[in-house]
């Protein structure tokens, strides 16, 4: 196992390169891409089952001793997110297969998709801060290329803004790495954890932690850094926005979790009030943003911000319960939101628009599609028995039981707004008399949307298993010494 | 002995570099400055590189140094030539002391005989 899980980086890289070389042969390209994604998913599943018993797999680059060379590590959290990313990307690839029509654009799509996957999975499995930066850049570069896939006016503008904002984030990241290296002279996460613990939360360490919070906030769209998200998620081609909302933002969340639990636990305790404030602002911004929109995808984008606020809130509680809730929320929201964005794409196929003003009466015209969307909206609004309800419930429980009454109360209060926008959006979409004729959509599209939406129900009715797992994950990541010793023993 | 020679070469080379820069500052217009820049820098580099090759006492380094010198002598004038022509075409702001300007006349004549609208800016 230790030997094969670097494949999560190498396999997509090889596949992507190969796919670009054979880009002229569309059939071969697509089949190989699907095959690789399937293999990836299987590997992720194996890793998940292997980490279930709490072992942390460590792969040392070139067998160099512990803190010096790059070390890849996979614990439960990593395995979970790997499964998440590979399954969602797979579904989106299937979707794209019958969604993208423009041949000229298609040929670059699959290679870039695999590079994107490589970047994300690299971020998940690396345990080296600078290596994390590198994989961030891989991921971002792929998204820069994929976001503005058709390069119309909107996409160009969006891609440009997105690129600029993320460049600032990268610079901040390097600043953070520099500060850390200057202070403790290492870049391996576990080693950093050890030495920072020795150093204690000096002001400089706290400032560094703050910098990292903001760096990862850009990916995770926490309040001041969320500005790129609405356009990026609503303008980019649908499969990409699904991946963005489903996995990419989770990369930021994942990194924040690692910082909070492994690298700077002490510093985060000092930062906690500010973090909670940021989370509430994020929730507020997301909720506020959904209200005046008329584009389905844009509403979904803002609701992503809203949900990310809740996830980050769970993390900011810095307790095992909060983290478990956050992990549950991450998984649930990933499948749910990508399902809904793909659903928006499905409706674009059917009606040729994502503008709610031009939709309506879908309940009669496309019952199955509107049923899928209904599941999504109910889950987003936090209604039982779907994942959304349990996710919110667990976060709120953690908050209340921790005595953060006011903050949790505010977070709960914004539930009213999410109630409002979800139901009105569904009404404007499914009820009423507006909208024109409805076309047809391929089986691949319906299949992928249904596949992803199914999780909203599965993890709702089967919340038991997911939450058990989330607690296992939380139990593991709240004990950084496990992670550290796993590396030490090999080093 | 060779050390002393190397030292002299180094000092001389960098001195000429300095001269070039001073000339760059003092001389009145682009063309005059180019005189200094081209000649002195090339010469200076030559000196420094020779010095280096003397110090290293190494076939590879020597060859490299010589090649570099050769290359500099080859390119510096070309560059100067290109720049000065371009500079003139941009607007021949010759300094006040300038006495003759045959080139200007030549260009005028060229303009007169064939009106060719320049076609740039369309990718």
């Amino acid at each position: 196992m230790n030997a094969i899980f670097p494949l999560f980086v190498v396999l997509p890289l090889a596949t992507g390169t190969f796919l670009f070389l054979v880009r002229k042969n569309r059939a071969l390209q697509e089949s190989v891409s699907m095959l690789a994604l399937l293999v990836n998913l299987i590997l992720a599943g194996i890793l998940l089952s292997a980490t279930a018993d709490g072992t942390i797999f460590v792969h040392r680059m070139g067998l160099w001793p512990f803190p010096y060379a790059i070390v890849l590590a996979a614990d439960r959290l990593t395995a979970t997110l790997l499964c998440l990313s590979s399954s969602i990307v797979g579904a989106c690839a299937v979707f794209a297969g019958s969604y993208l029509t423009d041949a000229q654009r298609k040929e670059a799509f699959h290679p870039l998709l695999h590079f994107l996957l490589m970047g994300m999975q690299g971020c998940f499995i690396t345990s080296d801060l600078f290596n994390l930066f590198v994989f961030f850049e891989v991921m971002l570069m792929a998204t820069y290329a994929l976001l503005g896939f058709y390069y119309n006016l909107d996409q160009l503008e969006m891609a440009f803004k997105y690129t600029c904002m993320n460049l600032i984030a990268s610079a901040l990241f390097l600043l953070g790495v520099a500060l850390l290296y200057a202070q403790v002279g290492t870049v391996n996460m576990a080693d950093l954890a050890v030495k920072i613990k020795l150093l204690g939360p000096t002001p400089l360490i706290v400032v560094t932690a703050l910098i990292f919070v903001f760096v990862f906030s850009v990916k995770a769209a926490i309040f001041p850094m969320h500005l790129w998200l609405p356009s990026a998620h609503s303008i980019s081609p649908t499969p990409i926005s699904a991946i963005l909302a489903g996995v990419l933002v989770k990369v930021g969340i994942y990194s924040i979790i690692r910082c909070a639990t492994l690298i700077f636990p002490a510093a985060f305790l000092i930062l906690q009030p500010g973090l909670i404030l940021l989370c509430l602002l994020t929730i507020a911004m997301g909720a506020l943003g959904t209200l005046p929109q008329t584009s389905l995808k844009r509403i979904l984008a803002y609701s992503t911000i809203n949900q990310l606020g809740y996830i980050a809130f769970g993390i900011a509680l810095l307790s095992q319960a909060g983290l478990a809730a956050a992990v549950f929320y991450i998984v649930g929201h990933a499948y749910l939101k990508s399902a809904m964005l793909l659903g928006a794409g499905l409706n674009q196929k059917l009606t040729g628009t994502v503008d709610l003003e031009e939709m309506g009466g879908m309940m009669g015209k496309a019952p199955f599609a509107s049923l899928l969307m209904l599941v999504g909206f109910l889950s987003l609004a936090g209604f039982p028995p779907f994942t959304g309800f349990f996710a919110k419930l667990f976060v709120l429980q953690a908050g209340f039981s921790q005595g953060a009454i006011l903050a949790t109360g505010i977070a709960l209060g914004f539930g009213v707004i999410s109630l409002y926008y979800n139901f009105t959006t569904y009404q404007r979409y499914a009820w009423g008399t507006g909208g024109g004729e409805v076309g047809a959509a391929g089986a691949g599209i319906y299949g992928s949307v249904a596949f992803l939406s199914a999780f909203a129900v599965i993890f709702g009715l089967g919340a038991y298993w997911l939450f058990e797992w989330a607690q296992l994950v939380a139990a593991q990541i709240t004990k950084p010494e496990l992670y550290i010793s796993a590396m030490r023993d090999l080093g | 002995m060779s050390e002393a020679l190397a030292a002299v070469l180094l000092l001389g080379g960098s001195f000429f570099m300095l001269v070039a820069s001073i000339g760059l500052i003092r001389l009145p217009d682009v063309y005059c400055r180019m005189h200094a820049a081209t000649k002195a820098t090339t010469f200076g580099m030559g000196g420094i590189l020779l010095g280096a090759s003397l110090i290293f006492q190494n076939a590879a380094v020597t060859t490299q140094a010589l090649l570099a010198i050769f290359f500099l002598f080859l390119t510096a004038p070309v560059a100067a030539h290109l720049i000065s022509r371009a500079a003139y075409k941009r607007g021949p702001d010759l300094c006040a002391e300038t006495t003759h300007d045959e080139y200007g006349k030549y260009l005028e004549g060229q303009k007169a005989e064939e009106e060719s609208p320049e076609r740039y800016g369309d990718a």
Partner: protein
Amino acid sequence: MIEIAVQISLVMMGASVLLAFIRLIKGPTTSDRVVAADTLATNVLGVIALFAIQTHNKLFIIAVLALAILSFVGTTVYAKFLERGKIIE
């Protein structure tokens, strides 16, 4: 002896870099700036060569070679620009 020479020449190079840089900033015309930049590049080459001597590192000599080429390319491109500068600026 060599060391002293290198030190002195480094100082001189520094001064010339400074002067060239002043010209670069002052302008006045873009052509002046290009000339200054060209000189600057050559100066940097000199500095590198001196470093090669100081740190007995042959690598730098190749660098000089490569950079000579590169700076020439740069200058050429600038010249090309100045040619059609009337339009661009």
